C-alpha cells in the first residue's frame, strides 16, 4: 500500500507532492473555520451518560434492590443553564455549562460485539476496522489537511495514553496513527504530562551538554564524509529531519511542554492526576499554537471509565479527576481570549447502562454479569456497554453557548428519542468548525477515501453559531 494523496473543489487536483508516494488531497469547498485548534478530551472506556451529563432518576444503594430499578447512582445537580441538569460530582463543569453545548444523543456504531478499542478506532477515524487501508486518526487528518499552526509545534499531540496495555495494545496502536497519510502526521505521544518536558528535552541519560556535543560530532562527520554528496534527496531528507528534530527541542515552544514552569497555584487547580495535568498541558500547548491535542483519561481494559464492577465508587473517582481541570481549561482559555477559536470536544466511545448491552433493539452478547438483585456495593453502577446514547460536550470554537441538543427517554432503556448524532455527523461538525469540508478526501491507490465515511457526514448546523 502506498501513501495517499488530498482534492480542492473536488476536481481541482493539487500537484503531487515531492514524494511520489504522498497521498493527494482532494479538498472540497468549506465554510470559514470557527476554530483553529481542536482539543479532544477523551473519556476512555465508556463514560456512563446517566452518571454524568444525562442524569435520570436517582436510586441510592440498598442491598436487595433490583438492578433494573437503578438508572442513576448520583443525584442530579443544577448548572448555570436553566434547562440543563448534570450529575453530582461535576459541580465545576456545571458552572461553565453556559460556555458550551451538551449533546445527549450520540449513538455509537453497531459493530456487533463490544470491543472498546474497536469502538475507539471507529470514533477516532470514522471507520470500523478492518479496513482495506490504514485509516488515519482525526488528529492526523487535521494535521495533514491544515498543517501545524506553529511550525515548531507538532500538529498532533496525544496526551495520556500508554500504548502497552496488554491484550488490546495492538488495537489501540492501530488507530493512534496517521495511517495512509504518512508518518509525519502521526501523533506526538506524551504518555505522562508531568514528564512532557522530557519528550522535547535531551534524554536524562544524555543531558544537554552531551546532546550538543554529540550533535556537533554528527555534523562534522556528516560534512567530512568522503561520500558527503552521495544519496541525493534521501540524504537531504535525513539531514533536514535530524536538524528539524533538534530544532524542535531547542525551540521556545518546547517550553510549553514543561509543566514545572506553570505557577504553583494554577498547577494545583489542574492537579487531579494525570488527566488533570493533561488538561493543563493542553492549555499550554494551545497558547503556543498547537493544532490538535487529545487528552485521555487513558484506556486500560477494566480501568478508569471501563467500569465492569463497583461502577458508582469508581465513577466518583473519575469525576474527581475530570471535573475541576475541564472547567479550569475552559475558563483559562476564555480568560486568555483563546476559547473563541479553540474547540473543546469531550466524548467517549459509548455510554453505559446497568442492563442493556448494545442497543435496546440491537442487543449484543453480554460481557458483564449483572445480578438481577444487587447484594453488594460492587453491583452498584453502570457496568454494561450501552451504544444507543452517550454524551458529548462542546466548548468554544463557535459552538453554541448554554445549548442542549438531543434527548433520551427518562425510563429504561433510556434510549435516544430526539436528534440522534452519528459519528459521521459529529465528525462533519467538528471538521466544518475547523474549516475542513466533510467531503474532503485523500486519494490512495487511485481511489478517494473521505474524511467522513464515504463523504456522507453532514454538519449539524444548529450546534454552532
Amino acid at each position, binding site marked *: *500500500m*502506498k501513501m495517499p494523496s488530498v482534492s480542492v473543489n473536488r476536481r481541482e487536483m493539487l500537484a503531487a507532492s515531492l*514524494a*511520489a*508516494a504522498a497521498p493527494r488531497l482532494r479538498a472540497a469547498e468549506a465554510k470559514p473555520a470557527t476554530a483553529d485548534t481542536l482539543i479532544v478530551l477523551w473519556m476512555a472506556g465508556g463514560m456512563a451518560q446517566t452518571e454524568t451529563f444525562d442524569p435520570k432518576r436517582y436510586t441510592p444503594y440498598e442491598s436487595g434492590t433490583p438492578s433494573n430499578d437503578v438508572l442513576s447512582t448520583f443525584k442530579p445537580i443544577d448548572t448555570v443553564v436553566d434547562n440543563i441538569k448534570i450529575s453530582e460530582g461535576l459541580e465545576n463543569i456545571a458552572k461553565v455549562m453556559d460556555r458550551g453545548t451538551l449533546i445527549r444523543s450520540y449513538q455509537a456504531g*453497531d*459493530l*456487533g*460485539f*463490544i*470491543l472498546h478499542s*474497536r469502538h475507539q478506532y471507529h470514533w477516532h477515524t470514522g471507520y*470500523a*476496522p*478492518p*479496513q*482495506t*487501508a490504514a485509516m488515519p486518526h482525526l488528529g492526523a487528518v487535521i494535521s495533514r489537511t491544515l498543517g501545524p499552526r506553529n511550525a515548531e509545534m*507538532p500538529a498532533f499531540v496525544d496526551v495520556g495514553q500508554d500504548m502497552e*496495555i*496488554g491484550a488490546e*495494545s*495492538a*488495537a489501540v496502536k*492501530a488507530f493512534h*496513527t496517521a495511517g495512509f497519510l*504518512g*508518518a509525519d502526521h502521526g501523533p*506526538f505521544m506524551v504518555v505522562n504530562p508531568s514528564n512532557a518536558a522530557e519528550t522535547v528535552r535531551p534524554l536524562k*541519560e544524555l543531558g544537554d551538554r552531551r*546532546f550538543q*556535543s554529540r550533535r556537533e*560530532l*554528527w555534523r*562534522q*562527520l556528516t560534512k567530512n*564524509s*568522503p*561520500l558527503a554528496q*552521495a*544519496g*541525493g*534527496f*534521501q*540524504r537531504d531528507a*535525513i*539531514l533536514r*529531519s*535530524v536538524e*528539524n*528534530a533538534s530544532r524542535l*527541542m531547542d525551540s521556545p515552544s518546547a517550553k510549553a511542554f514543561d509543566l514545572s514552569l506553570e505557577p504553583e497555584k494554577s498547577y494545583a487547580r489542574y492537579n487531579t492526576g494525570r488527566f488533570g495535568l493533561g488538561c493543563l498541558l493542553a492549555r499550554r500547548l494551545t497558547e503556543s499554537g498547537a493544532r490538535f491535542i487529545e487528552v485521555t483519561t487513558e484506556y*486500560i*481494559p*477494566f*480501568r478508569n471509565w*471501563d467500569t*465492569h464492577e463497583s461502577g458508582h465508587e469508581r465513577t466518583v473517582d473519575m469525576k474527581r479527576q475530570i471535573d475541576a481541570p475541564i472547567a479550569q481549561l475552559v475558563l483559562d482559555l476564555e480568560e486568555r481570549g483563546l476559547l473563541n477559536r479553540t474547540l473543546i470536544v469531550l466524548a467517549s466511545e459509548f455510554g453505559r447502562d446497568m442492563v442493556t448491552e448494545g442497543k435496546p433493539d440491537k442487543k449484543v452478547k453480554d460481557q458483564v454479569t449483572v445480578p438481577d438483585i444487587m447484594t453488594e456495593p460492587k453491583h452498584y453502577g453502570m457496568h454494561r456497554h450501552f451504544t444507543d446514547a452517550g454524551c458529548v460536550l462542546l466548548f468554544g470554537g463557535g459552538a453554541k453557548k448554554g445549548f442542549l441538543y438531543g434527548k433520551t427517554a427518562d425510563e429504561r432503556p433510556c434510549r435516544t428519542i430526539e436528534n440522534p448524532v452519528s459519528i459521521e455527523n459529529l465528525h462533519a461538525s467538528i471538521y466544518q468548525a475547523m474549516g475542513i469540508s466533510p467531503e474532503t478526501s485523500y486519494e490512495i*491507490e487511485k*481511489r478517494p477515501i473521505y474524511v467522513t465515511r464515504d463523504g456522507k457526514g453532514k454538519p449539524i448546523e444548529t450546534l454552532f453559531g
Partner: protein
Amino acid sequence: MRLRALFVCVSAWAQVDYQTQVHPVLAAKCFACHGGDKRSGGLSLRDYQSVIDGGRSGAVIVPQSSGDSLLVQRATGQIQPKMPPAGPGLTETELATLRSWIDQGARPAPTAAPAKPRFVPTLELRKPGGSLEDLLNAYYKRNNVKVSAVSDAMYARRVYLDIWGLVPSPEQLAEFTTDRGSDKRVRLVRQLLAHRENYAGHWFTFWNDLLRNEDSFGTYGGDRKSISKWLESSLAANLAGNQFLGQLLNPRRPEDPDGFLTGVNWRGDSSASQMPWVQAAQNSAQIFLGINLKCNSCHDSFISKWKLKDAYGLAAYYSPDPKLELVRCDAKTGEFTGPQFLYPALNRPSGESLEERHAAAAEMFVDPRNGRTPRTIVNRYWAQLMGRGIVEPRDDMDGEPWSPEVLDWLAAELAARNWDFQWLIEAIVTSSAYQLPSVAEPAPAKGFVFRGPQVRRLTAEQLIDSLSAITGEWPVLERGNQKQARYVREAHRPASPLSLALGRPFRDQVITERATDATTLQMLELVNGKGLYEHLNRGAMRLLGREPAAPPNLFDSLAMRATTPPVKIDLDVSNLKEAWLVVADQGSYSPGQVKTDWTGVELITANGTEKIGDLHTTAVETHKLDLRGKNARRLQATVGINAESNRSDINPSVRFFVFGEQPNYHRLIPVLEQRPVSAPPSALTRDELIRRIFRQALGRDVTAEEFRLAQATLGETPTPEQLTDLLWAVAASPEFQLVL
C-alpha cells in the same frame, strides 16, 4: 519515413478533431452503457483517455488502424455483438469520422502527436530470446544508459544488506575485497544465500509485510493467526515458490499457514467487503497478481475494469459457502456468484468442498499458463532490491514495464526453475543492472528510464540489526512464559517506538511498499529516543568489555495470576551474603495495585529457624534480606498474589524471583549465549574500535579527518558514554542509513 510524413501532410487539412467530432458521436450512441460511471465490459468512453485505455477486452482503438480497432469492428458488426445493441446504429458518416480519426492517429487534438497504443499486458508468458544481459544491454543502448559497476566494497555492502539484512563485518569485507577471482561476486552471493538462517532472518520481513503477518499483535478479539513458524522454515528451506503459494492458498497440514486466508478480523460484525474470504481475495490478487480488488469488493470499480462480481468470484474459492451473494456497499443485491477466477481462461472446476476450492485456487495462481503471478513476484523482488519495480505502481501489474523483455525473461526463467526464489535473488543481484551506480533522484512517475538502483533507506530491521552486528549486543526476546530468553533479530521482536519510527508498518493491511521518507517525528526518535540510546549504550559497554553483571536467578516462579495457587520456595542460601526477593510485572492492568505475598519467610540456620514473617510487595518492588553473620542454610517461603488483587481492573500477572546478589533488572532471566551472528572481538584498542566501527557501518575505511574527530570524542580511554556518542553519530549519518 518520407511516405508517412507525406501522408500526415496531405491529410492535415482534414484532421478529425476528437473533441468536436468524435466525442459527440460516442456520447450520442454509446454513453447509455459506456458513459463513465457505467462501464459495461469495463469500458468507459467518457473522455479521451478512457477511450484510449479501453476496457476488459483490452484496447478498443489501434491508432492508425481503424480496421483493427475493436470500436469500429463492433460498430460495424464485424465482431458480434454489434454495438450499440439497441437503438439506431452509427451512421455511415459517423463511422467515417471514427475511421478517419483512428487512421490519423487517434490524436487528442489535431495538432497533438498520434496516440500511443495502450500497453496490453498478456496473461501467458513467453521467454524472450537471449540472456538477461543481452536484454539489459539492448535496453541500455536504446536508452543511452551509461554502464559501469560499483566498487567491490559497495557491492559487498549492498548484497550483505539485501540478502542477510546486515552490514558485513570488517573481516567479511576484507575477505571479499582481497579475493582475486573474477567470479567473486557470484560466489559471494551464493555464499550468502547458502547461509539459510541469515537469509531467512532478513527475507522474513519482506514476506511479513506482504502477507501481513505479525507475531506480537493481539487478536483484536477476533481471528488472526500467526504464520511466522511456517514462513521462517519455508524460507530457510527455500521452499519452491509454487509450493509456497500453494500452501498459503491451500493449507492442508497442521503446520501450513492457514492464518493467511484467515485474515485480520476484529470482534463483532464486519463490512461485507471485509469478510475473511473477501479479504483473502483482495490479498491474494494484490500480492500475487498485482490486481487491486479493493474498490470492487464494495461496488464495480470506477477506476478499473474490475467488477463487484469479480471480487466475489475469487472470494467464492475461499468461502465455506461456494455460492456468494453479491453485497454492494453493504446492501444485498440478490445476485449470486460461484467460484470464478479473474482470468476465466484459467478457471478450474472447483468441486464441492472448501478443500477442493482451495486446491483449485492454488493451482490457478501457479498455472503454467498464468504468467501474471511470476511476473508479479519478479517485479516485487526487483523493486525490493532496486528501490523501484520494472512495473510501477507495483500493485498494478497492468502497467507498462520499462522493459517487458527483462520482466518476462526473469518471470519465465523463475517458473522454469521451479519457482526458486533464491535463484531470482541471485539473478537480480548478479546482473549488471544491480551493479550500476545508484540513482539519487526520485524516480519520475512518467517517462521513467532505468539507469541503476534507486538509493534506498535501510529498513528499521536492517538498521537495528546492523547496529547489533557492529556492537555484538542484540535485542533480547522473552517469549511467553519461559525460563530462558534469547538474542534475536529485530524482526522477531514486537514493534517498538524506534522500529515504528524507522518505518516498520502495522500489518493490518498488506504492505507492498514501505514509506521511506525521513520525517521529523521519526528523527526525533532517532535523535532523542530512549530505545536507540539504550541499544547503543549496551553495545558500547559490550565493545568495551564493561557489560553490567547479570547474576542468575535462584528462583523463578514463571507467570502467576490471581488464580494461580501459591508456590513454595525452599532454596539453598548457604554462602550467600544477601537474598533479593523480586517481583516483576508480567502485564497486569494496574501493576502498582497488585499486592503480592511472601508468606512465612524463614531462614533455616545452623542454630534453628529464624522467622522473618510475611512480606508484601507491589508488582514493582524488591526486598533485600541481609544474610551476613546469620549462617543461613535455606530460605523458605510461599509466594502468591494477594486475594485483594483479584479484581478486573487490576488483572494481576506477576513473576517472583530470588537472587543471591543485586539483580540486573534488564536480565532477570538468563539469555542463551547464541547470537544471530558472531560477536566482534573483545579487548580492542580505541583506535581499533574506531577503524572497525567505520569499516563495518559504512563499508569503507575511516578517513584521517574522521579518525581525528572520533579520537577527540573517545579520549584516551573511552568510556561507554563516549563510545555511545560515537556510535550514535555514525548511526544517524545518512551514509549509514542509506544503501548507496
